[in-house]
């Protein structure tokens, strides 16, 4: 209890000291504006920014580092108070990847296998729809766009149970990965919005030049528009792949109990919800699961971050 009081008191004291300094400098500013610019506007604020950002960044990184350290521990070391492993072992990684009961490697392959087709084909069909909705002129185009926009606002929770019943009864797709793959192939409305926005930015003369050279409208799309829009398509592909890879609800509902069909998320979930939790192995599985997303994001942040702005700019 005393320690808590001391820590809180220190924090309060630092805050009061900071605000007092700012206030004092602010008072001086009335007489000396240049001084104010230099001191209040720049120095203490920037330092405060760095301090706060560093603290938040540590809070963000800490769980990841903690999981990484824990994944190198031995089973008995997990329950120690030291966060650093007494002895680094990579046994846990070997176990989760090769153990025939955990099947994490198979889960990884399944995840990629289930995520790839809806991304590749879905981004393609979405681009086609975006092209039709932005650069083709036909009756009812804007109405179709409005209807598609309206479907974004439908909360997914309504369709949770009826979709399940439908996939089970009508299509017979339950206990197979088909419900995860087929709907995604038809395209997604958010991807259409993003790509439509992108395509609206391309000059109209491109289409006209293609028509004059004897291409059909479809030819214009495949020969001119698509090659030009590959950065936008790649961004959407990466986002969709990451979302598909991280999907949890879909596999949980539809994959059923057949372990050979599990995705990596289901594998981690089944490990984490087991009665006997082997924390060091769960953490190794988590690190392996997170690695593709983190690597993809680090090397392609331009695409990840760029595309979310454009979608927001459209709606906001």
């Amino acid at each position, binding site marked *: 209890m005393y320690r808590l009081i001391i820590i809180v008191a220190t924090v309060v004291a630092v805050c009061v000291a900071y605000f007092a300094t700012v206030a004092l400098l602010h008072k001086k500013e009335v007489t000396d504006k240049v001084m104010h610019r230099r001191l209040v506007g720049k120095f203490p604020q920037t330092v405060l920014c760095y301090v706060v950002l560093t603290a938040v960044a540590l809070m963000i990184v800490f769980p*990841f580092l903690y999981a990484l350290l824990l994944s190198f521990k031995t089973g008995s070391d997990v329950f120690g108070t030291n966060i650093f492993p007494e002895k680094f072992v990579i046994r846990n990684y070997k176990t989760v990847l090769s153990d025939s009961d955990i099947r994490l490697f198979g889960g990884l392959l399944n995840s990629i296998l289930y995520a790839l087709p809806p991304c590749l084909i879905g981004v393609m069909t979405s681009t086609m729809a975006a092209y039709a909705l932005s650069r083709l002129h036909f009756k009812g185009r804007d109405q179709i766009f409005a209807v598609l926009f309206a479907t974004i606002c439908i909360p997914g929770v309504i369709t949770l149970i009826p979709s399940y019943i439908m996939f089970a009864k009508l299509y017979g797709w339950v206990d197979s990965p088909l419900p995860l793959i087929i709907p995604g*192939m038809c395209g997604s*409305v958010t991807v259409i919005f993003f790509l439509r926005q992108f395509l609206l930015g391309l000059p109209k003369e491109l289409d006209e030049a293609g028509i004059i050279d004897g291409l059909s*409208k479809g030819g214009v*799309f495949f020969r001119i528009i698509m090659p030009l829009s590959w950065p936008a398509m790649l961004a959407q592909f990466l986002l969709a792949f990451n979302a598909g890879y991280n999907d949890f609800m879909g596999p949980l*509902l539809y994959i059923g109990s057949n372990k050979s069909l599990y995705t990596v998320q289901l594998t981690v979930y089944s490990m984490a*919800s087991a009665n006997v939790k082997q924390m060091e192995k769960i953490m190794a599985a988590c690190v392996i699961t997170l690695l593709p997303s983190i690597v993809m*994001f680090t090397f392609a942040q331009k695409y990840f971050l760029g595309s979310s702005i454009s979608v927001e700019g459209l709606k906001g």
Partner: protein
Amino acid sequence: MEKVKTRKLKNHDALWGAAFLAPITAGMILFVLIPIGYAVYLSFTKYDMFNAPVWRGIANYQRLFDLSKETQFWLSLKNVAIFAVLVSLLNVFIGLILANMLKSCKAGGVYKVILYLPTVCSVVATTAIWSWMYNSDYGPISALLRFVGINGYEFFAPAHVMPSMIFMCVWGGFGGSMFLYFAALKNIPSYLYEAASIDGAGSVRTFFKITFPMVSPTTFYLLLIGLVGNLQVYSQFLAIGLDGYTPVLVIFCYAGHGYGTTTYGYACAMGVFYGLLVGVVAFVNFRLSKYWTNYDV
């Protein structure tokens, strides 16, 4: 002659348009509209997945609105509403403050990437990590709490579960709002700030009179998707092992009446009602937005 040719070209457009829009239209009808229609239909029936649905009229809705019997649904509705409002507001608030800080730092780009990291990560994996972070005996947070003199804090005790989950979800969610604010802040013309500084406005005043109104469309968007998304939150609670703790979330109620049980009709009534409720929240948000968002440059 000329007229005929134009019409022919337009027909071509319609043909290609139909071909290009066919996949998304088929997907929408098969996987969104039919399930919704089916949900509305089933909500008026008694259905157990083996026998054909039996028409029951509004009996399911009567049962849902019978407040004396159906307490769990309404309790969890209250909980999820508190959860969604708090998480959305915290995400927006923290995102705005951190975006402002990023803007005034030279090394902002590095921090931006780090702070955005949880947003791209798997919810199952990060939740598994947090479940150990929150361990009351061996977790690092409880070690920290012990260091400051708080012993035996149970993160998943009924009174503490909400703050724990809110903290975890904000940890995983503020990156998106921070990034969108960062992009919005860059679009504010600098002459507004120059004008404010010439007029002698301090940093607090500048924030409330210039920054906040100028990013209000982003705030609106973030509150909208935040509320709609967090009202439907499920994965985090399930992955951390709170699925036995039913008063937490309305979707558990909903799922509890669906999978593995025989009351699909009642579950659909819950789902339709809840979906309408989320829709109303989005709609109210839209209508209120014109009073406080600003689209002028």
